[in-house]
């Protein structure tokens, strides 16, 4: 990722060779055909260690085209190290245009957030997923979790939510909150806050999920039903804040608490930096 890196002509477009991209696209087609189903793929060595979004990067590399406009976010921000590195990587190996504007992007790779600006038809989001198996903390065996999916036996997931309520008085799971995709497959929405879960439901954009270490990808095609699990007497709710964003005054975006000085003063600001910027400009 530094200037000592090999220059562009030594790589195929988007780094991966065409066979690998075809393999990934075939897996993606299957994923789109079976919403929420985890499709195995042959994960390739990427010039980044696992945990830095290798799954998402491979998906992006397999679908990005010359005319795409790429946005990369990490925790909602376009300017964090991880986001900057991935954006630079694709700029170098594809020369496509990049942007921080959600509206201007055709392809958005993300870690931890879905933008506040509503997605539109034709856009594709690629999520970086550390653990694709929503049941993993409860069932360590991959053989067993595959059986549970095959037979749609998801009582176990409610065991976790039950346990949350028994211990904390409410469902304390606040990110990577399990969802049922198309009324069939239990899925991890990746570590997005549960605040973003409603955006998955009937999204007009195509949502793709890639886990590099676990070598699994899955998809939520446009206009798919996505339901967050809950109990009748403990319905699904999203985070709400007392205050508005200190920078743009938004009342309905996801806020991060930041410490502003050594004395520990805090303020709440939008985690989505592009959205916050837009809001500030529209007020100015």
């Amino acid at each position, binding site marked *: 990722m530094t200037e000592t890196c090999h220059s562009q002509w030594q790589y195929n477009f988007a780094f991966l060779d065409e066979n690998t991209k075809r393999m990934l696209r075939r897996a993606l087609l299957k994923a789109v055909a079976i919403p929420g189903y985890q499709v195995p793929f042959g994960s390739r060595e990427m010039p980044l260690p696992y945990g830095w979004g290798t799954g998402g990067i491979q998906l992006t590399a397999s679908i990005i085209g010359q005319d795409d406009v790429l946005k990369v976010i990490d925790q909602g921000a376009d300017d964090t190290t991880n986001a900057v590195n991935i954006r630079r990587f694709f700029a170098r190996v594809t020369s496509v245009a990049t942007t921080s504007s959600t509206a201007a992007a055709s392809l958005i790779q993300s870690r931890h957030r879905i933008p506040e600006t509503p997605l539109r038809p034709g856009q594709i989001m690629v999520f970086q997923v550390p653990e694709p198996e929503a049941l993993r903390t409860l069932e360590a065996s991959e053989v067993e979790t595959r059986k549970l999916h095959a037979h749609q*036996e998801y009582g176990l997931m409610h065991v*976790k939510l039950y346990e949350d*309520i*028994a211990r904390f008085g409410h469902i304390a799971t606040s990110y990577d909150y399990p969802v049922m995709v198309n009324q069939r497959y239990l899925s991890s929405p990746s570590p997005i806050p549960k605040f973003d879960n409603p955006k998955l439901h009937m999204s007009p954009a195509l949502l793709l999920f890639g886990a590099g270490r676990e070598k699994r990808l899955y998809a939520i095609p446009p206009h798919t039903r996505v339901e967050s699990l809950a109990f*009748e*007497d403990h319905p699904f709710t999203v985070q709400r804040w007392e205050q508005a964003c200190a920078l743009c005054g938004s009342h309905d975006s996801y806020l991060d608490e930041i410490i502003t000085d050594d004395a520990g003063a805090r303020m709440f600001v939008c985690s989505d930096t592009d959205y916050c910027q837009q809001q500030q400009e529209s007020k100015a």
Partner: protein
Amino acid sequence: MSQPVLSVSGLAKDYGNGQGCFDIDFELYEGEVLCIVGESGSGKSTLLSTLAGRLSADAGSVRFRDRAGSSHELTTLAEAERRRLARSEWGFVTQHARDGLRMNVSAGANVSERLMALGQRHYGQLRETAAQWLEKVEISRERLDDRPTAFSGGMQQRLQIARNLVTQPRLVFMDEPTGGLDVSVQARFLDLLRRLVHDTGIAVIMVTHDLGVTRLLAQRTLVMQQGRVVEAGLTDQILDDPQHPYSQLLVSSILQA
């Protein structure tokens, strides 16, 4: 008389080394407890697992009548259907509680799991049902949020019973459920089990190598030796007047003990 819950004929499971279980025939009726006794290695667990579909049979037939009265051939049942029956119509209690419980979640979650698997989605109701079942197995409802790791061996086995019976199965398989318990704890456990069987009308197939357990619980008994049933019949008859030399040996050894 009503139709049997389970009808087994010519059942065999062959591990390929001459071991397993062979030529098994019996019927089991509602509310009945059947004990399978025999020495270590005689094929008791193999038979139980084959009946429950956890091992695939090599010959014979196992017909199960569900609550609605439909009959299922378990030896050829599709996996999905077998799992559905296992969730809704059967229970399986293991010798080691850690194999039959989730040790890392609360007692309440353990008891509620099968209900949630069947689609119950009301936390308050699940919790109340779980509390009632804890009481039925003589565990205080105060322990609802404790993990099984904080329970004694006897409590863990009783929790396993509650976890299995909460969905009111028709048939419960038990493999040496008292195996790991002290004698005094065992007696209380068996007493409780007898009461639950009486109250709920479930049918039980229990593997044990303890003829005392058999005498206390079972109407009928199968005696196994080297993978075969050498004697079958009413428990009292077998214990009081064993016909097969091996049964005679078993009975005399318990009388001496």
